[in-house]
C-alpha cells in the first residue's frame, strides 16, 4: 500500500514552505513540521514534509543507501511518486539529498557545492537525526542570529565543526542543511558560523 502525502497539497506544502523559509532565516531555531504525515519507515515526518514541499520534477533527489535499502525501497518510491522528482545517480548531481546522520554519516564535501556563476545550484541536504534539542551543543553565529544561538542536535559526526568550517570557507558556494528529527526541523544555511561547546 502506498502511503499518502499531504491531504491538501497546495495549502499544506505552502505552510511547510513558509516554515522552512523561516527556519533558514533564523538558523538553529527548532520548528514543528509534518505532524499530519505518516511516511514509510524509517523516513521521519519532518524530513518527508520538507522533501514533499521542496522537491519536484526539476530537482534530482539523491537518497542515501540506508533509506534505499530499508523496507524494499519504500522511501524512494514514496518520494518519487508524490513529488515526481528523478533520482540522482550521485550526491554530486543532486539538488536535494536525504541522509540518515546515524547510518550514513555526513560528508558535506561529497555534495554539489554550486559554481561561482550559480552558487544556488548546490545540494540542500535533508539530514535525518535521532533528536533535536538534545545531544552535543553547537553555538551558531552569523546572519539571522542575534548575537549567538544554541542548537543541540544528535548524532552529528565528531569532525562536524571542521566540515562546516570548510563548507563555510567556500562561501558563496556550499551546501545548506535541513536537520529533521521526528516532527521537528531546524536549518543550517551555509552562511552560519558554528563553534563547539565553549563553556
Amino acid at each position, binding site marked *: *500500500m*502506498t502511503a*499518502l*502525502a499531504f*491531504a*491538501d*497539497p497546495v495549502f499544506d506544502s505552502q505552510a511547510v514552505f513558509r516554515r522552512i523559509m523561516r527556519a533558514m532565516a533564523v538558523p538553529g531555531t527548532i520548528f514543528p513540521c509534518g505532524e499530519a504525515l505518516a511516511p514509510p519507515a524509517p523516513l521521519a515526518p519532518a524530513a518527508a514534509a520538507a522533501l514533499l514541499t521542496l522537491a519536484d520534477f526539476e530537482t534530482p533527489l539523491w537518497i542515501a543507501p540506508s533509506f534505499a535499502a530499508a523496507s524494499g525501497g519504500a522511501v524512494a518510491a514514496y518520494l518519487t*511518486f*508524490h513529488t515526481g522528482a528523478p533520482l540522482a545517480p550521485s550526491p554530486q548531481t543532486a539538488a536535494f539529498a536525504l541522509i540518515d546522520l546515524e547510518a550514513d554519516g555526513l560528508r558535506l564535501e561529497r555534495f554539489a557545492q554550486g559554481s561561482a556563476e550559480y552558487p544556488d545550484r548546490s545540494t540542500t541536504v535533508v539530514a535525518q537525526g535521532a533528536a533535536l534539542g538534545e545531544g552535543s551543543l553547537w553555538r551558531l553565529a552569523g546572519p539571522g542570529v542575534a548575537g549567538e544561538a544554541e542548537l543541540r542536535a544528535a548524532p552529528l559526526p565528531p569532525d562536524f565543526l571542521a566540515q562546516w568550517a570548510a563548507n563555510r570557507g567556500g562561501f558563496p558556494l556550499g551546501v545548506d542543511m535541513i536537520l529533521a528529527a521526528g516532527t521537528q526541523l531546524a536549518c543550517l544555511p551555509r552562511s552560519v558560523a558554528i563553534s563547539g561547546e565553549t563553556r
Partner: protein
Amino acid sequence: MPIADPVAQRATNDTAIAARKRAMALLARALTPEMAEPVGRLWPTCDARDLKPVESGLVMLRGRIGGDGAPFNVGEATVTRAVVELPTGERGYAHVLGRDAARARLAAIVDALWQKPEARADVEAAILAPVAARVAAEKAKTRAETAATRVDFFTLVRGEDGA
C-alpha cells in the same frame, strides 16, 4: 538455462503499453454514466483509495501547422487528474479534460480495474467497447458534416504561358 530474448521482451512491453494507452485514451473520453453504471453493477465493492487528492489544473497544449511546422504553444486547457489504488495494489491514473472530479476519479478506477487480469474482459465489454463505438460514431458524424462543405478548386488557366 533459458536465455531472455531482449527483442521479444521489448515487443511484449510495447504491445502492453500500446494496449494501456488505448484504454486510457478511451477512458479520457468516457462520460460519467458510461463508467458509473457498469462499475456500480460489476464491482460495487472495489474500495479504491485516492493516492493523491483529485485536482484540476492547466496543461499547455502544443501544436504545429502541417506536418513539418515548428511546434508552438496553442494555449492552456483545464484538466483534472486522479490517481487511485485498489486494495490489491493496482494503481489507476486518469487525466480528463474539464473540471469534473467525479468523472476523473471513475476513469482512474476503471484504469486500475483494467489492469486486473480477471477484470479486463469485463471492462473491455462493459465500458471500453461502448465508449469506442460512441467516439467513432461522433467522429464519423463530424467527418460527414465537414465533408459536405468541401469545395474543390480546379485551376483552368494558370496564366504562365504569358502572351
